[in-house]
């Protein structure tokens, strides 16, 4: 059988491929400019500006970054620890709360749900929140200020509750008859059945921790405590360049590669998420799809 393509379908396809290709290119272009900038020589950037293709390909910016990588490694360690601890503890608390609120036989579930939900409707705002953390909790320059306030959010609890609502009540009922306690039901039955929900919210949470620069911006004053994104921000925003040993080793008239170095740092800092994201994206799409169909 010969498949005949209608003219209209053909046109639709042509337009579709073009539109999607252009949009995809626009999504890639800024990344490419950073990559290209990181491989350009400083002289070229100063002379011609950033280019799509560097004419003087060099890896000297990366050599500078890795000549004295302690600062970046330290920031990596901070970001990785915060992300891991924050996501794990956060998921534990969120899923437990979601479980309690999803239990239809729990009399106070609506009252407590509203107590939590109300915080998304009305808030004291940034400044009272900041003063609470700095003045009353005394968390200025403490990792706690980066870790705790981001851990739980009302939206994530509501999302989790909705995921768990779809677990048949009869499973919980029968476990109860078998004499299982609430925590056992939660940890042994409900959690394994909620893996798509856990994966999605875990990713949201992890990404939020990994990309957080704002908390460090307002709470952290010691340079050694900077997480990755805030270190990048500092390097990009100020003239202060990484403490590399390169500049010291070379002659006095040597100008450190500021612009290309910034780009190289951006690449080194962003690297892992770029490699991980195609893998993470699959879980996101799955989770979002489940959420969207439920409405």
């Amino acid at each position, binding site marked *: 059988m010969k498949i005949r393509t209608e003219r*209209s*379908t053909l046109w*639709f*396809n042509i337009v*579709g*491929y073009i*539109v*999607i290709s252009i949009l995809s290119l626009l*999504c890639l272009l*800024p*990344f490419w*400019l*950073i990559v290209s900038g990181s491989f350009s020589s400083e002289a070229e950037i100063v002379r011609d*500006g*950033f*280019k799509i293709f560097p004419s003087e390909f060099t890896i000297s910016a990366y050599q500078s970054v890795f000549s004295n990588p302690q600062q970046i490694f330290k920031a990596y360690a901070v970001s990785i620890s915060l992300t891991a601890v924050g996501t794990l503890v956060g998921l534990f*608390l969120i899923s437990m*709360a979601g*479980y*309690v609120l999803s*239990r239809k036989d729990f*009399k*106070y579930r609506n009252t*407590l749900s509203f107590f*939590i939900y109300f*915080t998304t*409707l*009305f*808030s*004291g*705002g*940034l*400044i*009272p929140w900041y*003063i*609470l953390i700095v003045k009353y909790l005394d968390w200025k320059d403490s990792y706690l200020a980066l870790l705790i306030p981001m*851990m*739980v959010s009302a939206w994530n609890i509501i999302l989790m509750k909705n995921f768990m609502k779809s677990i048949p009540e009869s499973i919980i009922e029968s476990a109860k008859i078998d004499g299982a*306690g*609430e*925590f056992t039901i*939660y940890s042994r039955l409900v959690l394994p059945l909620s893996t798509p929900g856990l994966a999605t919210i875990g990713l949201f949470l992890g990404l939020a921790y990994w*990309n957080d*620069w704002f908390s460090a911006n*307002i709470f952290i004053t010691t340079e050694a405590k900077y997480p990755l*994104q805030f270190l*990048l921000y500092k390097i*990009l925003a100020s003239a202060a360049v990484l403490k590399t040993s390169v500049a010291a080793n070379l002659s006095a008239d040597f100008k450190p590669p500021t*612009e290309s170095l910034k780009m190289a740092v951006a690449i080194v800092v*962003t690297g892992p*998420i770029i490699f991980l*994201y*195609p893998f993470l*994206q699959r879980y996101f*799409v799955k989770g*979002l*799809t489940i959420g*969207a*169909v439920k*409405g």
Partner: protein
Amino acid sequence: MSGLIAELRKNKMLFLMIALVLVFFVVFSYFPMVGVYYAFTNYNFDGGLFGSPFVGMQNFKFLYESGALLSLTKNTVLYNLAFIFIGNLLQLICAIFLSELASKWFKKTAQSIMFLPFFISFVLVGAFVFNLFNTETGVINALLRQFGLPSYDFYMNTEPWKYIIVFFNVWKGLGYGTVIYLAAIMSISDEYHEAAKIDGANIFHRIRYITIPMLIPTFILLILLSLGGILKGQFDLFYQIIGNNGMLYESTDIIDTYVYRSLAVNFDIGMGTAAGLYQSFFGFVLVMTVNWIIKKTREDYALF
């Protein structure tokens, strides 16, 4: 009250399991609500919450009379409207194209690429913007120079930033929104399309009369949901693109950036809290209104 105690005893474990989360919200959400009192004071750090002089509505009056309230509200609302409508429309278009194109490989690759910006931090977005638009080394000015044209100082002109900010917001959320719409398209039964094909409908007819009408409810719902947050901003985006560049505030200052500056640059706690309270209060009224509208039209989608 005795009901509560009986309930506590009966469901001790359930209460225990949610206790930490409740404490979290009491500390980080409900305690700061007391702090809105700062909005009515001339705050000084030594005096603290109730030691600072009470000034009544003076902060609000000043915000209003200086014109800040009006221009902040205007900027915040207009930016959000642009984000919501342009963003959703583009996501919708992408989802329709992606759902109909035949090449699996192309679809997968395009979807992955469009999702990429969602994963990166706003700090990097700020770097992109600087790479593209700065006067000395920016790509656009480098191109202009190559063609012998005079360079354009973006950081001295307010006008282009409206478009730059909207572009990067839409850019960052494109892949995410497309997935939501794609999911909605996938849930449309194939039978409609098959039947329409037999009746001789071409691809445009089918999109016009089946896909789009079926997506309208999702579209309206997503728009309504986001309208509730129209006074809230995208602080990360604005701050990473504009920073503390006062030259550009006229067209780029939103409530969130104003509040942040009150805290971190001007140390004007009273004024900043007042602006934050204004945002929170009207946001609250808006959400209630939007929820009321959803309840009237599509009850099962109401938020509460």
